[in-house]
């Protein structure tokens, strides 16, 4: 008989098909939806996160594990009472206006998702207004911006200023990208900076604690 522990194992292995099959089986058996998520899907992903940090697992494997987890969650989600869905927090991500480089932002998204965050990715080439609109719509606790160029990174300041003007100062603003440094983050009034995807998770954790 399949168990919730097996579900964790399939997530760790990144086996999307088996994760889905077992999730369905558990639902059919009448397992508690929150238990499937917390002790099965997320528990597996937590192991993945630790192994990645220890250098035992690598990005593509984290990616498929996250994919397995989120597909499982999608199946359980309709069964959960609104508001009870576990989440470490909601983060909105985007690449600033005039910048089409997004691999770094994508990596941050994967790492956050695999750490239990709900991630809203609004894509590339996003003007300050687009960020504001999305923040209003999705109500995240954290808003993250990426830029690869020393020219496009200038848009970060505009966005943060516009957020304040719009009364969204309670949302934490974080920034990242090759030319970004802590000094720059301070200068534009950001709440935080992380040099890579793994530390972006630590940053979000500390901002929300």
């Amino acid at each position: 008989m399949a168990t919730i522990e097996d579900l964790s194992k399939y997530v760790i292995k990144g086996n999307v098909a088996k994760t889905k099959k077992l999730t369905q089986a558990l639902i059919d058996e009448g397992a508690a939806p929150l238990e499937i998520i917390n002790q099965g899907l997320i528990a597996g992903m937590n192991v993945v996160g630790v192994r990645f940090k220890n250098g035992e697992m690598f990005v593509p494997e984290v990616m498929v594990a996250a994919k397995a987890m989120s597909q499982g969650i999608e199946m359980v989600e309709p069964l959960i009472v609104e508001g009870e869905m576990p989440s470490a927090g909601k983060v909105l991500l985007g690449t600033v206006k005039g910048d089409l480089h997004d691999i770094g932002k994508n990596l941050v998204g994967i790492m956050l998702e695999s750490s239990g965050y709900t991630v809203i990715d609004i894509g590339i080439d996003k003007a300050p207004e687009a960020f504001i609109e999305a923040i209003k719509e999705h109500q995240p606790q954290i808003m993250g911006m990426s830029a690869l160029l020393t020219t496009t990174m200038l848009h970060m300041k505009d966005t943060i200023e516009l957020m304040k003007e719009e009364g969204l100062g309670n949302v934490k603003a974080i920034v990242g990208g090759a030319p970004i440094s802590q000094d720059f983050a301070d200068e534009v009034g950001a709440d935080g900076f992380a040099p890579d995807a793994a530390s972006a998770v630590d940053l979000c954790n500390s901002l929300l604690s």
Partner: protein
Amino acid sequence: MNTTRSNFTRANFEVNQTIHWKMLSDDQCEEIYMTALELLERTGAEILNKEAQEILEKAGCWVDGTRVRIPSALAEWAAKTAPSRVTLCDRKGNRALRVETTYSYYGPGQRNSFVLDPQTGERRKPIKEDVASAGVICDALKNIDFALSNGYPTDVNEASADLHVFEALLTNTTKPIIQYIHDVKQAQAILDMGVAVAGSLRELQKNPFFVFLIDADGTLVHSDETLAKVIFAAKNGVPFIYHTNLILGDTAPATPAGTLVVALADVLVGVLLGQLVRQGTPIIAGGIFTIDDQENGILPWGAPEVSLVGTGMTNLLRSLRIPSFGFAGASDSKISDAQMGLEEAFSMLHMGLSGTNLIHGCGLLEYGLTGSLVMLVIGDEIVGMTRKIINGIEVNEERLARGVIDAVQPGGTYLGEEHTLKYFRDEFWWPTIMSRDRIKDWTETGSKSLGKRAAERVQSILQTHKPEKLSDDVVAKLKEIIEKAEAAL
């Protein structure tokens, strides 16, 4: 992932299974070979060993005192008769290294008069323990294929130092050993030790796990002792390396081509004598070359000419189908710094690309004077990088990834693709001590240079790696052989 369902084939298609790199063309190799044959026939060589003179004369050489001129037909016969391949085994007799065509294997260097103490970093004379440590390190490193001494131990009887070296290596690694021999007496004891490990001389001949290293004296001179060693090895049918040491502009012409003529003439004498003593004797030929750096009064081992002429020699030996022995991985730097890294990498890359079969010399600092285990560990990483490059790029339908490129679409990402998951481990080279940390992580873990990280690896290997042991009775037999040999001195 394929883009078509057809079972089509493709004709007339040549691929590089590995990278291709060549210095001398076939015609150039032939020209140097012909010139070396002419040199042996016209100038000849000094043969200072009586038995060798007799053997050569009987075979048809023109012997005039110690000067022996060799008819081209005879030298050519020897080059063709010598086997094109030798397999070296591990200590347990498992076939390990295919010393043939362009298979490349790497190992440490040995002629150092000093070592850097692995604990203190202090530069001092080598002791037997240092050889043992080198054995352990070689045994543990994935990309180091064979073991050599780490200098000559100064805490044992000088006249039997070779035996102690051999014992220290035998007991600390199962990898094949290249064993230098100072004289025939020690060679006999080493052979006895080898027989003790293998079980019998016949087993040793079938599955040789060590090879004698015999230095030619260079510039067409072959001393009494050197040739006695060749005759000894050939008579016993165990593989040996016959290599020459030449200095451009000093013991050889300043031109690389001229130096190669001398080098080839030198090693062909060893090949010929070996084949005359016992037809089919396995022999590995080679050379170590450097320039005369008059400004500094030293013989540099990090100079590009070391790799330049070494590669030329390998090209020549390949054209003759004689297994090759070469030199790489040493530096003229006195310490572990960027110079050490670049000189070590430069030579190891080129000798690997050239397809030299046995490449020794890794871990020698200070133009060969000082052995460093830290440098050896760094060399292991360089071999990893070099091998990744030499392996080239595999091009086939699935690796071309046409379907994947279309599935991802412009602006997409390959991170989550099945194809990525399937290939990323095998297509990438994975560093062990090279750092790819961002500056924040690098600083947080102590801002260590590669030299520091490698030194830590040396410590961890010495403390944790346990090489497979020899059985107690073999160990006892080895001791007995050494004691007997020392008593006879």
